[in-house]
């Protein structure tokens, strides 16, 4: 369970204080697919980076299974990113001179998994995301956008994280491919009982999710949930997902 309490983040941009995330509180139960929506500049990416421990909040708490990750030491933060989080970005962010399979193996290498196991699991994951065997050793530049995003999803799943954070994962894809990617993400996460929090502009996608968190000027305004999640979910989205 992910519990966010009074999360606040301000940036100092050339002397002016910019509040990117303003006193946000919410709860996401395990295994939920949640969407964050909001206008450009409303603080979606900033919120995601706070959840993924890529940045430190100005104040407030992010608790994962009761542990406040904002208070972790540097070493534990790295461990948290490595084992608990999987990131999927709009721009895929694959390492350009590594092949598809090497990109998927990378987080497992950081986690100390043996080379043989890394390869087996990477092959397995790439098969699950639907990358054909002949493309495993291709560099990202020789893959299509959709294929690159499949590799990125496989990479995010590599260390069996509890939480997948996706920042506009379909933003660079046509809507048909985007839908395939979201379905894939959803399907795989369900299989591993992984929580997904995805930032999206696509209301079509948002409609499929269990929980929708809406940001406006850094504040959380509306949270709606599918029938499976009782309302109001803004301050306590209780997990009763099937």
């Amino acid at each position, binding site marked *: 369970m992910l519990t966010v309490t009074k999360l606040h983040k301000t940036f100092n941009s050339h002397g002016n204080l910019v509040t990117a995330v303003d006193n946000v509180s919410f709860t996401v139960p395990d295994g939920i697919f949640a969407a964050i929506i909001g206008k450009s500049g409303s603080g979606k*990416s*900033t919120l*995601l*980076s706070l959840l*993924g421990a*890529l*940045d430190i909040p100005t104040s407030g708490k992010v608790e994962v299974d009761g542990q406040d990750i904002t208070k972790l030491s540097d*070493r534990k933060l*790295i*461990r948290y*990113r*490595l*084992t608990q*989080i999987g*990131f999927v*970005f*709009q*721009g895929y*962010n694959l*390492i*350009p*001179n*590594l092949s598809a399979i*090497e990109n998927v*193996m*990378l*987080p497992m*290498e*950081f*986690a100390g998994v043996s*080379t043989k196991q890394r390869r087996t699991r990477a092959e397995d994951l790439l098969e699950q995301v639907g990358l054909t065997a002949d493309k495993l050793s291709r560099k990202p530049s020789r893959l299509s956008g959709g294929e690159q995003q499949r590799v990125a999803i496989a*990479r995010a799943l590599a*260390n069996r994280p509890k939480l997948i954070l996706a*920042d506009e994962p379909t*933003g*660079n894809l046509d809507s048909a491919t985007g839908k395939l990617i979201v379905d894939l993400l959803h399907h795989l996460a369900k299989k591993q009982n992984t929580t997904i929090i995805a930032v999206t502009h696509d209301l079509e996608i948002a409609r499929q999710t269990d929980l929708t968190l809406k940001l406006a000027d850094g504040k959380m305004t509306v949270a709606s949930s599918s029938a499976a999640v009782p309302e109001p979910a803004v301050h306590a989205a209780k997990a009763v997902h099937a």
Partner: protein
Amino acid sequence: MSTVSRGVRNAFRNPIRTGGVTIILGLSVGLALVMLLSLKAVQGRIDTVKSSIGNTITVSPAGARGFDGGGEPLTQAQLDSLKSLPNVTAVTGTLNDRLTPVTDTSLASAIDPGTLGNRARRATNPDSANAPTGGPQRTFSLPVMVTGVGAVTPAAVNATSLKLVSGTTLDAAGTTNTAEVGQALATKNNLVVGSTFTAYTGTKITVVGIFDAGNQFTNAGLMMPIKSLQALSAQPGQVSSGTVTVNSVTNLESAVIAIKAKLGTAADVVSQQDSATNAIAPLESIKTVSTYSLIGALAAGSVITFLTMLMIVRERRREIGVLKAIGASNIKITTQFVSEAFTLTAMGAVLGVIGGLVLANPILKVLVTSNTATSTGGSFGGGGGRGFGRAFGAIGGNTLTTLQTTIGFDILAYGLLAALIIAFLGSALPAWLIAKVRPAEVMRGE
């Protein structure tokens, strides 16, 4: 795939840049290597010159050299006062005397007078000054040279080497009537260890050893303990000259000044200081050039690596952020970049070592010619005609023309070491930049 192998692979991501950087680094590593080699060669030669020149100072009575000149003798007490001077490690006195065969000693001279002996006799004897130069030579015996020594050293008998051929070394500190005789003198007089001869109104002197000093003049003489000789020749406490040993050639000059201050006008103080300085000066300047070039080459290599790594790190900011976001530690990422830097410099080093092998001696030759051209004028030859000015001029000349770098297997180790140093210096700031990359940046500006 490991962090290190990823770094190595990354070094080839941009082949054109890699090629360029390798060539430039190769030049700087090669230059550094050449400078290191010439530094070693030059230092080796400086050491040889210094040890060949010796670290001794000769103190003689003012106005006298051996049996020539005049003035008052020096005393052992005066010499002893020099022992307390800074950098002086030993002071020994010698007393020279001449024994005329038949009248003074039972020994016969081992040297025939010949042309030089007769000329010297005419020069000192007014009777023979008017004798026709081409006339028949008179027969006379050259005196046997006896040296009272305080220590058995080559310097004490004006030789460059001193070998004991048989018997034992003379007890120079003793007061017995014993002698170590030169090889030639021993042969001439059929002396063996244990033989005796007479000198100084019939005093019996025992041969304890026979030496070879490597030259005829010294080998025709003999050594006795200085105290014995002082007593026998009725010159108590007197010395003909003293040899002051200084701890290092580099302190010769200051020691000469101190000795002159101590003894004032009573003594003439002579060292090979000037010859040493003259012989070493051009070498020292090659050393200086080499040292600065070495530092310069390493610095240039480091700066190039540094700028390259800076460029690479800036180019891959996002990638660094991604690595951090997926759980890489700063140490892992830094290791990867240092491996990349090391790969670049190692390739440069290989190129540099090959270049260094080819260019070391030609470059050293250029250094030598440009340095001798500026320093030979007058400094070697102008020794005042005393003989060793010219002799050391020759050493100085040889020193430079025969200088050669020696290239061994250690060259590879040096090249690799240079590459390592360059890689680490060049990666230090980029590593700091890596640590500063905020992983949240991957979210921005897609």
